[in-house]
């Protein structure tokens, strides 16, 4: 769906990404892990067309990202930013409704979609509230609902890029939101999410990309990537990797 070949990106004269090959497949949730400054956000910016690659290609559906007309691309590819700065008192459903701006699906359909997206992001109770009165975690869920509304109802033609979607969420919502994203991906959308919590990544992601110093250190299933060796090499962190007693996925404990 979204194909990356030999991607390299320079930022302020510094090589922040090099030699990245990646094929984001329909229906999968791919987690991107790596220490601060490893190039995760640069990767997401390059995948969304915000940063121009100095080498290599990003193709959406076989067509270079820059060749897509803006609106057509927006109906296929949505991006959740890390910390959007909105200083105006829109109501929650208005912000979520912005996700429908690239579409011409009519007010009635848009209202339905916004209501569904609010429910998926577990913020239906915030209906009518001013965005400015919300907490950081609530705002993050509003923007998640917005990008879900943008791609609604999901499906095999669509790509969703999430920059740390759980960074401000409480423990319950870290799980429920990633579960919701998983289910959205289950409809066919290809999802890439930058994550910091190794155990959340192990539990919800189909594949993981481990970035270090602008390069892909490892790409594979959670079992393949989340091993003591690579984690020590990339994060400098000594860990024990066990199995989740009920679910069987890797469970990472710092030593």
């Amino acid at each position, binding site marked *: 769906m979204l194909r990356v070949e030999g991607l390299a990106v320079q930022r302020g004269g510094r090589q922040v990404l090099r030699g990245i090959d990646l094929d984001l497949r329909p229906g999968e949730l791919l987690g991107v892990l790596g220490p601060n400054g490893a190039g995760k956000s640069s990767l997401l910016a390059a995948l969304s067309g915000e940063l121009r690659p100095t080498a290599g290609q990003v193709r959406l559906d076989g067509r270079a990202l820059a060749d897509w007309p*803006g609106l057509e691309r927006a109906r296929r590819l949505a*991006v959740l930013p890390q910390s959007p700065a909105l200083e105006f008192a829109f109501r929650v459903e208005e912000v979520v409704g912005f996700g429908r701006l690239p579409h011409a699906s009519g007010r009635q359909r848009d209202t339905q979609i916004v209501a569904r997206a609010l429910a998926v992001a577990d913020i239906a109770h915030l209906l009518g509230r001013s965005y400015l009165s919300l907490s950081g975690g609530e705002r993050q869920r509003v923007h998640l609902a917005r990008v879900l509304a943008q791609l609604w109802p999901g499906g095999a033609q669509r790509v969703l890029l999430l920059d740390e979607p759980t960074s401000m969420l409480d423990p319950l919502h870290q799980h429920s939101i990633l579960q919701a994203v998983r289910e959205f991906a289950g409809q066919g959308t290809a999802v890439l999410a930058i994550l910091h919590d190794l155990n959340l990544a192990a539990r919800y992601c189909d594949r993981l990309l481990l970035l270090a110093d602008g390069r892909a250190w490892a790409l594979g299933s959670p079992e393949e990537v989340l091993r003591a060796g690579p984690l020590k090499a990339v994060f400098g962190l000594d860990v024990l990797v066990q199995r989740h007693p009920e679910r069987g996925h890797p469970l990472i404990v710092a030593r």
Partner: protein
Amino acid sequence: MSVRVRRSRILLPALGLLLLLAFWLSLALGPLRLPLVDSLLALLRLAGLPLSGEGLEQAELIVGQIRLPRTLLGLAVGSVLALSGVAMQALFRNPLADPGLIGVSGGAALGAALAIVGGSLSGAGESPEASPYLLSASAFAGGLAVTALVYRLGRHDGRTRVATMLLAGLALSALAGAAVGLCGYLADDAALRRLTFWNLGSLSGASYARLWPLLLATLGVALWLPRRAGALNALLLGESEARHLGFDVERLKRELVFCTALGVGAAVAAAGLIGFVGLLVPHLLRLLCGPDHRLLLPAAMLGGASLLLFADLLARLLLAPAELPLGIVTALLGAPFFLWLLRREPL
């Protein structure tokens, strides 16, 4: 249904009525007070209806020659200043941004100062026929030139950085202010007085000849901006976010700067510097109907026009038969009100 939704349904009709009232009063009131009905009848006579009555010919003369052009000027200046305010607040994603930020007011003031003082120094200002148009043209050109320079300075790697534009606008406005000061220093007393009054703004110089360029500019801005309401909403989320929603943000920013330079430039050229309208009207309306540009833009157009007409009525009536400069009235009304807004609980 929330209070705001209910309010937003009646907002546009209410503002429309308010504007009609302001328009009517602005035709009737002044140093010479016309009966309210007569001012309407005079308007109908001007439109070609064969009405006759006592004093109606005189009313037609006053309305046709003085009050109507003045009222239309106020309407256009008020709506285009408020619309430009909305455009700048979206561009800078800050509800406190003002059309003056990109240098258009400072540049126009400099253009006017050069025309006034240059005219008086060279003796050309002695011809009262030509100088008002020279003044307007020079102010408009000054506003456009400084804004173009600010925009140019904000460009970097094919993108416009609004933060850089903001700082460039501040610096160039300061520079223009210094040049205006220098003009004032060099001017003789008559020119200095004209310069001072021009800086305070007024609708008293209204004439149809001055009106047309401004009406065209206002019409252009008023038709163009509402077509971009969705894009402006998206822009408030951030430039990257607006791009992710499919909008051509660089083009949008160019359009916003151009609309503001055109609208504010034309308004300042026709009526001098009039502060606070572009800041106050959008801010107040956002409190009433929320920040959605689909509603905010038409509301700002109606609200800005009404506010300016009422302010001009005060300017005409407070010291009648003398006239207060309009900029003094808008600042006297606007500044305390704005302080009150700032101290309110933020929404």
